[in-house]
C-alpha cells in the first residue's frame, strides 16, 4: 500500500494522495510492513521517529520535499529494511539524522543532507549499526560539520559504521565541506568507529574547499572495487583506478549549486555501475 502525507494534510483523512495525512508518526502507525509512505512536496517539521518494521519513505523530490530538524537533535531510527529517497534533510544538530540501531539494510537515494553540526562522540549524519548494509546513491552532503575533538576512528565522519561487519556502498554522491583548521571542523566523509568498516566508493566527489588538506577518511577499509572518485582537498586515499585529483569544477558550490561546469574533469569520467 502507498500512503501519503503532506504538511497541509490532516490525520483525520484517509491517507490517499487526494486526502493525505499530516504526520510521519501517524502514517507509520497506520501502515504496515512493506508499505510506502510518500511525502508530498512541502516543508515538514521533522521529529524523532522509530521505524520498527520495513517501510519505504519517498518524497516528491529533494528540491521540494524538505524535513527540517529545527536545529535540534532529531533522528529517524531505521527499520531492519528501509528505503528512503527524494528527501532533503536539513537543520539538524547533535544527533544523527539517520540511525540504524541494529543490523539493517538501508537504501538512500536522491537525498540531500545539509546544515548539520555535531560535536559529540559518534554523532555522524548517518550512523550504521553492526551488521548493516547501506547503499547510498546520488545523494548530496553540504554544510555539514563535525567538531568532535578526536577525528580518528571516524568519530568526526559524516557517515560512520560501528563495526567491521558494516558494508556501505556510496555511489555518485557529492560531499562538499570547507575545512577550517582553526575551529576545527572536520566533516570527514566516511569512517569506521574503532574497527574498520568496509566502504565501496564509486563516482563520488569529495571536495574540501578549505585551505588545508584533510584526511579523506579514517579507520576503514576502502574496497578494491572502489574507483573513479574525484578527490580535492583530501589526502590518504589509496591508489584506485580512475581517480580524479583536481578541482571538480562545480558551478557555484558555495551557493549550493553543485552542477558540473562544462569543463569539469568529472564529466563522463565515471564508471558504469
Amino acid at each position, binding site marked *: 500500500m502507498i500512503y501519503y502525507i503532506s504538511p497541509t494534510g490532516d490525520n483525520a483523512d484517509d491517507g490517499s494522495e487526494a486526502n493525505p495525512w499530516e504526520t510521519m508518526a501517524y502514517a507509520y502507525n497506520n501502515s504496515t510492513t512493506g508499505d510506502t509512505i510518500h511525502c508530498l512536496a512541502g516543508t515538514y517539521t521533522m521529529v524523532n521517529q522509530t521505524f520498527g518494521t520495513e517501510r519505504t519513505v519517498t518524497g516528491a523530490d529533494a528540491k521540494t520535499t524538505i524535513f527540517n530538524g529545527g536545529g535540534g537533535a532529531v533522528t529517524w531510527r531505521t527499520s531492519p529494511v528501509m528505503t528512503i529517497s527524494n528527501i532533503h534533510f536539513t537543520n539538524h544538530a547533535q544527533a544523527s539524522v539517520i540511525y540504524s540501531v541494529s543490523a539493517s539494510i538501508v537504501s538512500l537515494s*536522491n537525498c540531500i543532507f545539509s546544515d548539520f553540526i555535531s560535536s559529540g562522540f559518534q554523532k555522524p549524519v548517518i550512523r550504521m549499526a553492526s551488521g548493516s548494509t547501506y547503499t547510498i546513491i*546520488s545523494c548530496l552532503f553540504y554544510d555539514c560539520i563535525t567538531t568532535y575533538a578526536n577525528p580518528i576512528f571516524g568519530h568526526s565522519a559524516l557517515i560512520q559504521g560501528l563495526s567491521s561487519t558494516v558494508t556501505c556502498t556510496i555511489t555518485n*554522491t*557529492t560531499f562538499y565541506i570547507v575545512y577550517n583548521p582553526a575551529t576545527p571542523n572536520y566533516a570527514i566523509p566516511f569512517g569506521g568507529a574503532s574497527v574498520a568498516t568496509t566502504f565501496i566508493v564509486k563516482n563520488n*566527489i569529495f571536495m574540501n574547499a578549505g585551505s588545508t588538506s584533510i584526511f579523506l577518511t579514517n579507520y576503514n577499509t576502502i574496497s578494491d572495487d572502489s574507483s573513479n572518485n574525484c578527490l580535492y582537498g583530501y589526502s590518504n586515499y589509496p591508489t584506485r583506478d580512475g581517480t580524479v585529483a583536481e578541482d571538480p569544477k*562545480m558551478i557555484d558550490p558555495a551557493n549550493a549549486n*553543485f*552542477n558540473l561546469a562544462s569543463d569539469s574533469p568529472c564529466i563522463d569520467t565515471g564508471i*558504469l*555501475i
Partner: protein
Amino acid sequence: MLPIPPIPPRILKGTTQGQIPFYDATLGKWTPTETSELFWDDVNKRVKLPSILVTETFKNYNPDLTDIGMEQESDLRGYGSDYISKKLLSRVQIGTVADEVEGAVRNNAGTFQIYLNGIWNDIVINFRFREDDGGAYELEHKPIGFDTWIEVNSGNSNVLDLNGLPIIQQYQTSIGAYQVSLQIDGGTFN
C-alpha cells in the same frame, strides 16, 4: 537282514534367515543361497540383493513405481533410452562441445551457444525487453559486472540523479550527484 543305509537328504539344511533354495546340478541337490548374494526379506515381503556389484540393468527396480504390463521402461518415467522428460537435473554443467543437431547447447570458450538453423548461435545474456513506467516498450541491457539497467536505444539508465537525469547517459556517467545534460555537437558552421 541287512541294515538299510540312510538316504542322503536331497535338500541341504539352511543356516541363515532368508536363504532361498536353488538346485545345484553339480551337487545334485537343492542348496540354500548365500544371504550375501540373494535372500528373502520376510519383513518387507520381497526378494533383496545385498551390497553387491550390480552389472545389469534392473527393470522395475522400484516396486513402488511399478508400471502395468511387462514393459517397465516407460519414457515419461525419465529413464528411457533416448531422452529424459519431466525430471529436475541438479548441479549440471554444460560442456564445451555438443553434437551439431538442432537444439543442442554448448559452452564455447565462455560463450553459451545453441545450434539452430544449422549453425551455432551465441546466446546473448543480460538483456531484457519490458514495458517501462510510461507504458513504452524498451530493450534494456545490464553490462556484465554492473547493477544498473541501461536502455539500449538511448544508453540511459533507469536510475536518476538529483537533477532527475539518468545517472548513465549514452553508456557514460559523470562523477558526483549531478549529471550533465547531453550536449549536441552540431559541428562547425562554415
